[in-house]
């Protein structure tokens, strides 16, 4: 396998005179040249607002935007590209669903897991729902048999992969149970879309959300998949572009996808997602998965080998992120020292305070991987951890 890092210019950089070992990919990934160039080329040659333009650039931009929608649609296995809406990110996507379903959620229950990111908790609370978690064991395996669906349960909203622990949740099992109860399922794919081949038909979910910036594309753009079953829900956001007719008295909306895209979308961002998918597909999602799995397992093995290191979470399938702490050393101290060695990790609660509560800790050190990471990167991490321990002796 050729060196996949070569396509990412930022990785050539040195920080504090050391090679940058970027292990903060769950926060955001770096961008390949092809994505960066796609964005600048767009602004240099094609930039225009889309839709309803009667001029050349507007046609070109509209076409490129709709091609991006089609590319995403195929990438996630949607039946119809009208099921794909560009949003501002995972958080934007989930809030949009929370708002659209709002009235039906108020005073009812949304079932989540114990590993959710705040972005898959707070929107439901703002919609007036009670948020309860499917039980899990201490290794963070979901106890799906103990999942309680009552007549108050109106939605199941679950992370595909935990941004803290890397646990892959059994979303298919859950969607099957949900189907029996006719309860819609939203999947937060922010931490899976870049790691695992994924098909919404196979998953059987009604909504799926992810962010461009975590899958090698630009900041400010995300995706919401909305199954055709929900094509007539009230749009959450009102404005230009999603309107059939507006008067001050009464307004009617277009059909999806435009229905769910109020205002000028992030056109360059959507096109950057298309370029990012091209980049991943050129390597191959299966190859990416296999390579990342090797690096991930290696990192897990090396960390588990260490005395004085606690690794959190242990499920059948894991990918992306791994969280740990050194005994008696604060995660923030660990992060600061690793940083000075060129190793970029994230520390803290990772926007998952309920999980921190369950684990009985304030925060973790999190290393998270992307396609360009290697076992050498893991070695640098381990070396860094040894250095931290030494400094605290």
């Amino acid at each position, binding site marked *: 396998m050729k060196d996949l890092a070569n396509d990412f210019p930022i990785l050539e950089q040195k920080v504090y005179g050391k090679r940058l070992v970027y292990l903060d990919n769950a926060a955001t990934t770096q961008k390949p040249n092809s994505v960066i160039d796609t964005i600048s080329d767009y602004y240099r040659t094609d930039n225009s607002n*889309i*839709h*309803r*333009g*009667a001029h050349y650039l*507007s*046609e070109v931009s*509209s*076409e490129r*935007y*709709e091609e991006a929608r089609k590319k995403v649609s195929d990438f996630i296995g949607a039946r119809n590209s009208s099921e794909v809406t560009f949003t501002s990110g995972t958080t934007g996507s989930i809030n949009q669903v929370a708002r659209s379903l709002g009235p039906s959620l108020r005073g009812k229950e949304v079932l989540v897991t114990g590993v959710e990111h705040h972005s898959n908790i707070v929107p439901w609370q703002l919609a007036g729902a009670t948020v309860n978690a499917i039980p899990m064991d201490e290794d963070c395996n979901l106890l799906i048999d103990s999942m309680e669906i009552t007549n108050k349960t109106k939605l199941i909203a679950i992370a595909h992969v935990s941004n803290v622990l890397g646990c892959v949740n059994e979303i298919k099992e859950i969607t099957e149970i949900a189907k029996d109860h006719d309860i819609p399922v939203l999947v937060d794919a922010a931490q899976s879309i870049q790691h695992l081949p994924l098909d919404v038909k196979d998953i059987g979910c009604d909504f799926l959300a992810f962010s461009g910036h975590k899958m090698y594309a630009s900041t400010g753009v995300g995706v919401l998949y909305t199954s055709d079953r929900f094509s007539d829900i009230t749009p959450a956001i009102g404005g230009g572009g999603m309107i*059939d007719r507006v008067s001050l008295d009464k307004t009617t909306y*277009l059909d999806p996808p*435009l229905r769910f895209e109020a205002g000028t979308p992030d056109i360059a961002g959507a096109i950057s997602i298309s370029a990012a998918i091209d980049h991943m597909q050129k390597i191959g999602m299966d190859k990416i998965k296999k390579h990342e799995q090797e690096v991930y397992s290696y990192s897990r093995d090396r960390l588990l080998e260490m005395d004085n290191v606690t690794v959190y979470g242990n499920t059948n399938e894991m990918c992306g992120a791994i969280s740990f702490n050194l005994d008696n050393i604060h995660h923030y101290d660990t992060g600061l020292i690793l940083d000075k060695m060129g190793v970029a990790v994230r520390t803290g609660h990772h926007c998952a305070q309920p999980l921190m509560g369950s684990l009985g800790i304030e925060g973790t050190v999190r290393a998270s991987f992307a396609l360009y990471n290697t076992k050498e990167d893991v070695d640098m991490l381990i070396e860094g951890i040894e250095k931290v321990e030494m400094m605290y002796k």
Partner: protein
Amino acid sequence: MNDAIQNEIIEEFDGLEWFDKYSLLISFGKKLKPMDEEFKTEDNSISGCQSKVWVRSYNKDGKLSFDLDSDAMITKGIIALVAKVVNDRYPQEILNADLYFIDKIGLKSNLSPARSNGLESIINRIKEVATNEANSNDLKN
């Protein structure tokens, strides 16, 4: 499908500069018989177009024909051509039709899903009518 008509159109546009193409479309548009105002209803109109477009259909001896109109002249010219190609055909013929002339005479961008022009919506509507007719014929048989 009678490709002869499409080929005729393509030939007529062949080699023309855009100025002459548009002039030709405008002249076709001007010649298209306007729809009676009473039929320009919400139901007969197609949404998603920059210009307003109205569509009515007739079934004569199992063959379909369309009466089309628009408030914009170039659009009118384009739909005049569409009508020329699809009119007086059996529903199944229309369903199978590949309207390649649109691409060939350089109006493809008017067909883009980008909504700027509703040509795609117009063709969708025509095919929808044909589907309904084909199905109801099936039922009758």
